[in-house]
């Protein structure tokens, strides 16, 4: 039971971090559909850093380096999404492109660095760095929660956060108020990549000692997006959605057995449960924000005032 609770907390923390990353982009007026791909890029960067660090290095230097490299990899993956803002690309197709590109690139990287045609990457070194042991509180959990709190503080309590929200809510008036709308939106999208990348490393480590690269970030990015959309711009509602979805992810567990493994449920039920719950949550929160945000964004882009 303790292991299940820890798992649930870890999945929830990862979803929260990704949700927060998505919130930066969503508040900037760009629907963050590429979050899943950004998580894969982040996981790839974080694992590469963890495997490259020397043995005798201090953990207090190694942990921030791993997380930072995951964040930077996510940020690099977000560059096409950021480019779509000034170049007036379609955010949905650009996000889809990032999602589609991430897995083959990660697979190619795994096959180039691994033995034979293995589609599995070893995460043991990274888990050692982040100090997780069976039945103990993983070090990743407080770190992820601290980053989530930091992100929320940036969004809610800083001048940048207020400007970001203003640009997302009414770009035209923000422009008249003298804000640099394009630059602010690009920063929002890049921050989404940074937090999404760190969330990706957490998502991979939450799966256990190996990462099946072909499965990407196991759909956690889409779940985070669903929590964000179901929350309808209210952080408490998004938090509640993340807790429910994180717990549902933990029910399936790391190896597929979960705590309800012997309950006689049809095969695949627990694996599909988080996605079904996310669909129900989306259906219950009528009049989602996605379409309105896209419509506003398009209107603003049509105005030709996207110069940064």
């Amino acid at each position, binding site marked *: 039971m303790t292991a299940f609770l820890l798992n649930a907390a870890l999945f929830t923390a990862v979803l929260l971090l990704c949700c927060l990353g998505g919130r930066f982009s969503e508040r900037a007026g760009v*629907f963050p559909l590429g979050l899943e791909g950004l998580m894969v890029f982040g996981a790839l960067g974080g694992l590469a850093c963890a495997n490259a660090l020397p043995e005798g290095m201090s953990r207090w230097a190694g942990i921030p380096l791993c997380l930072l490299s995951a964040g930077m990899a996510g940020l690099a993956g977000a560059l096409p999404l950021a480019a779509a803002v000034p170049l007036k*690309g379609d955010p949905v197709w650009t996000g*889809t*492109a990032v999602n589609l590109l991430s897995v083959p690139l990660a697979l*190619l990287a795994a096959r180039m660095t691994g033995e034979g045609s293995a589609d599995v990457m070893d995460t043991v070194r990274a888990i050692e760095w982040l100090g997780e042991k069976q039945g103990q509180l993983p070090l990743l959990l407080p770190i992820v929660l601290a980053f989530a709190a930091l992100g929320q503080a940036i969004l809610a309590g800083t001048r940048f956060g207020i400007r970001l929200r203003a640009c997302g809510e009414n770009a035209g008036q923000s422009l008249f108020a003298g804000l640099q709308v394009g630059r602010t939106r690009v920063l929002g999208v890049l921050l989404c990549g940074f937090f999404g990348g760190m969330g990706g490393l957490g998502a991979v480590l939450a799966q256990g000692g190996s990462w099946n690269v072909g499965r990407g970030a196991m759909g956690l990015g889409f779940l985070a997006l669903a929590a964000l959309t179901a929350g309808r711009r209210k952080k408490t509602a998004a938090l509640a959605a993340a807790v429910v979805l994180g717990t549902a992810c933990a029910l399936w567990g790391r190896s597929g057995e979960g705590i309800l493994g012997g309950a006689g449920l049809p095969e695949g039920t627990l694996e599909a449960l988080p996605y079904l719950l996310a669909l129900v949550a989306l259906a219950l929160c009528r009049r989602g924000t996605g379409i*309105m945000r896209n419509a506003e964004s398009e209107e603003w882009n049509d105005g030709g005032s996207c110069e940064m």
Partner: protein
Amino acid sequence: MRYGKTDRKRFLYGSAARSLVVPLLFLAAILLLGLAGWAYLCPGRAGEKFLVMLQNFISGRTPGERARLLGQTLARTASLCLCALAIALPCRAGMYNLGVAGQYALGAGAALVCALEFRLPWAVCVLAAAALGAVWGALCGALKGGRNVSEALSGLLMNAVALVLCRNKLRSLLSGGGTLGVLSTGPMLPTLGLDGLFGGEPTVTPAIPAAALAAAAVYIVLERTRAGAAVKAAALNAQAPMYPDPGAGRTALMTLTAAGALAGLGAAAQLLSGAGGWSLSRQPAVGMVCAAAAAALLGGMDPFGTLLWAFVLQHLSDGAALADGRGPLLTEAIYAVLVGLGAFAFFIRHAGKKRKEKGGEKP
């Protein structure tokens, strides 16, 4: 008569230039990316592999082998074209059918279960695949039309559910019940003598002309019918689904249902013609969607443009697979980049129209 700056602008924003320049730019991008990819994967033999990728069936040693390879490419093109149409049709209604992977997977699952478990005739397998794909698309459409859930997000979530269901069901069909392996029905569809045109290749079936007919049917429905006008009208007002208009909801439902059926048919065409199998180690739907999205975007969401690009991309995919075992992954990555480029090109194609609407295009 002098050729001035305004004339140059008018030419650059004209529809003819856009139709010509954009595909040429994409072809150049494909060639560059392909060469760079092979240089990274096989530094010593990049040029050779790149040539094999470009040549595909032309690299066959005898005319018979070349005909057979062309037949295989055409058989896979049929499936890719149907999936690309499943993306292009909702896009004309202003919707993103990102759930096409789930619709394709369920169509494949239905076709395989009907063929391998119940030993049903091919026609029933095709109908089952189309029906299951349509149901999955209809669920997405109902969420969009009834509850205004973003079809992109619901489609992605439903993909995950469909892939889990499909994997668990198909695992039981594998001998030994393992998690690795490829399920295939072999050529089940009748060839009707078409195989004779391609060196006796058994995967050449009526699915190929059927895919071309499907593209023509989509074009006729969109351009010549009242339902098509309703579909295109839905795309003109992005905020229409925000209001309780039963007509807009019905259009979303019907469009996504039709798209789901097309994706299911694509899966049936691929598996029942024997042109491909279903790998349980990695979902083939993801690679298919990657190529289908690229074909639809590069074709400008036009049915015939989609058909043409589906052939070009399938030709390159098959060539890459002939060149090296890592070829399919490389082409998948290239197509993903093309989807990203297509997101920008979609704007380029419509830029002239927008200028014209605003009165910006003046002589």
